[in-house]
């Protein structure tokens, strides 16, 4: 079974009690995305500026005159969170040189959904990390465009039913594999890339902390169960996140300066059916489809293990 990920700086006693992402927000009950964001903000602390892309997070946290943000926050559009963050970082840099802005370190975090990251925002993100801006980009991956009503994205997994990849006489749901966004970011050779899931809060907190402390661009990809879009009971969010990790559907790893390390090493993975059967979006799948998905997950996991082994020889 899964080992508990090693606990670095964060242990229960020293998790900051202060909620920088406020309790009062309009997210659905059991929203995994919000759990992840809340933890990232605890790791970030108050010396932080947040950029949000359009999407669930932005909508549930900022209905004027209310706001869930206790740090400065800005939303411009759907596809440009990384570019806005780049402008903020550059602005602060030059203002500091001219003694017009605080000398204290200010963390810049951009949050975007899987659509805002892997689809419409991939160009701005690629540009911003290639230029080396000092910021942390967090993709909250709930595997579809949830804010607009559960449409498929390139991050929707194979076989999932969404409103635009519906099940029908000629369709088994999403017919393409999930785009591997963390590896696309790793190919940019940025100093820090990691995957995380709020079901592993200490792992997530430590990765967020490390990402934010990184000088230069860092990318954190958070697996975010969504009861509304995945069609699961609201009290199963944490459990489903765990099943996703334990089955190898969403492995937790870190790539630090190009070196990959699995944080949750699974001696024996749970069968993917344990994960799939918890969610309405996979309900239509037949045993042969599940076998197919199992093969895909196995292959993906083996690839990671081999990469980890190769990387272990790196300096």
């Amino acid at each position: 079974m899964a080992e508990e990920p090693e606990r670095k700086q964060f242990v229960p006693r020293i998790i900051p009690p202060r909620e920088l992402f406020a309790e009062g927000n309009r997210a659905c009950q059991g929203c995994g995305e919000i759990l992840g964001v809340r933890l990232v903000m605890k790791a970030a602390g108050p010396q932080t500026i947040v950029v949000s892309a359009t999407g669930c997070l932005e909508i549930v946290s900022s209905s004027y005159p209310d706001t869930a943000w206790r740090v400065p926050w800005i939303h411009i559009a759907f596809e440009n969170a990384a570019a806005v963050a780049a402008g903020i970082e550059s602005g602060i840099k030059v203002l500091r040189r001219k003694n017009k802005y605080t000398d204290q370190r200010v963390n810049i975090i951009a949050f975007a959904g899987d659509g805002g990251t892997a689809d419409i925002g991939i160009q701005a993100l690629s540009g911003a990390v290639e230029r080396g801006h000092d910021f942390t980009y967090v993709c909250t991956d709930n595997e579809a465009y949830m804010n607009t009503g559960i449409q498929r994205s390139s991050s929707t997994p194979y076989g999932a039913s969404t409103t635009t990849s519906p099940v029908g006489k000629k369709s088994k749901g999403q017919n393409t594999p999930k785009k591997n966004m963390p590896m696309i970011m790793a190919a940019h050779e940025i100093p820090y890339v990691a995957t995380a899931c709020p079901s592993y809060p200490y792992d997530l907190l430590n990765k967020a902390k490390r990402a934010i402390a990184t000088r230069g661009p860092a990318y954190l990809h958070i697996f975010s169960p969504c009861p509304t879009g995945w069609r699961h009971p609201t009290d199963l969010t944490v459990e489903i996140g765990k099943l996703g990790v334990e089955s190898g559907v969403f492995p937790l790893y870190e790539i630090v300066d190009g070196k990959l390390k699995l944080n949750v090493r699974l001696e024996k993975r749970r069968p993917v059916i344990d994960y799939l059967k918890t969610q309405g979006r996979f309900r239509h799948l037949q045993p042969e489809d599940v076998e197919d998905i199992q093969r895909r997950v196995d292959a993906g996991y083996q690839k990671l293990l081999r990469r980890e082994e190769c990387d272990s020889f790196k300096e």
Partner: protein
Amino acid sequence: MAKRTGLEVSLAVSEAVKMARAEVIAAYPITPQTHIVEELSQMVADGELDAEFILVESEHSAMSACCGSSAVGARSFTATASQGLALMHEVLYIASGLRLPMVMVVANRALSAPLSIWGDHSDVMAERDSGWLQFFAETGQDAFDLTIQAFKISEDHRVLLPSIVNLDGFTLTHVIEPILLPEQGEVDAFLPSYEPPSRLDPQKPTTVGPVGFPEIYTEVKKQQNDALLGSYEVILEVWDEFEKSFGRGYKPIEHYKTEDAEILIAIAGSMAGTARIAVDGMREEGKKVGLIRPRLWRPFPFEEFRNSVAGAKALAVVDRSLSFGGQGGPMCSEMRSALFPLDEKPVVTSYIAGLGGRDITIENFRTIVSDTERVLEEGYGDEYKLIGVKE
């Protein structure tokens, strides 16, 4: 003391941005704007300008980055044209809606298709309603001065809106003109460092860009429109101050031989130069022709415009852009409707010319005036006419 220098107008604009001490520049190359950002890159590389130049991967990101940098209180600049401006479209409305001051120079160029790198005004006319202040330069000096003035106007706390300075692609951007370059100290005195009323700062958290429900959206838009309308007074004030400091006076609408004119030509941008020569020629023949050149396009100077054309028999508006399936020229539509409520008003004729870099010749202006004379005589004309079309 200012010194007169022969400069390509693009480089003069870069000089203005440098003297304005822009702090963040985010821009992407596109003809005919490229010389501006190349020169600015060199200034930053040489340490002449202490700015962050963000070498974005697209104009959409250029505008997005300027929103971010303006929101932390940095003086922000970008320049673009045509397809680049069209790519920014979405974010332009957000920059003005969030009241983020910045300055953008647009080297006006036609929109594809067919692909054309040459000048006309169709790029900026598509952004007419984006909530930006918009100016048209005729000369290099105009372009230089407007760029510096635009920062001061945009950053005024009564305004807090972004500005576009329009420069005709090639016919203005790529010509060498004598430019009076002021001393840095004079510019600093006119344009002090930008102090935003609020900025993204962890010491004072603010939420910028929230969701606006139907209960408040209209009110926010009214505030924004009030600010744009209110900017008119600020523009006049700034031009007044500029004249006192630099000796050059600016008006929302420039007049040429208008006092006794019966037929007025209206055209924005650098083609007004040719129009002046055409007016001189027709005057020699005894025709009472004059010229008005709108420098300020947004906010539209309604009163000033109505006064400018009062007493004329006809107004011939020349647009370098075509509103497909509509009334032809966007500037003419605006002017026609501005005159509509008046009892006494000139007959308005509408001409489209100079599309995609086609020259507007002296002969074209003569054709426009004689067509307008015919309309005055016969009492009717086309909704609008394309000038110089090869049949």
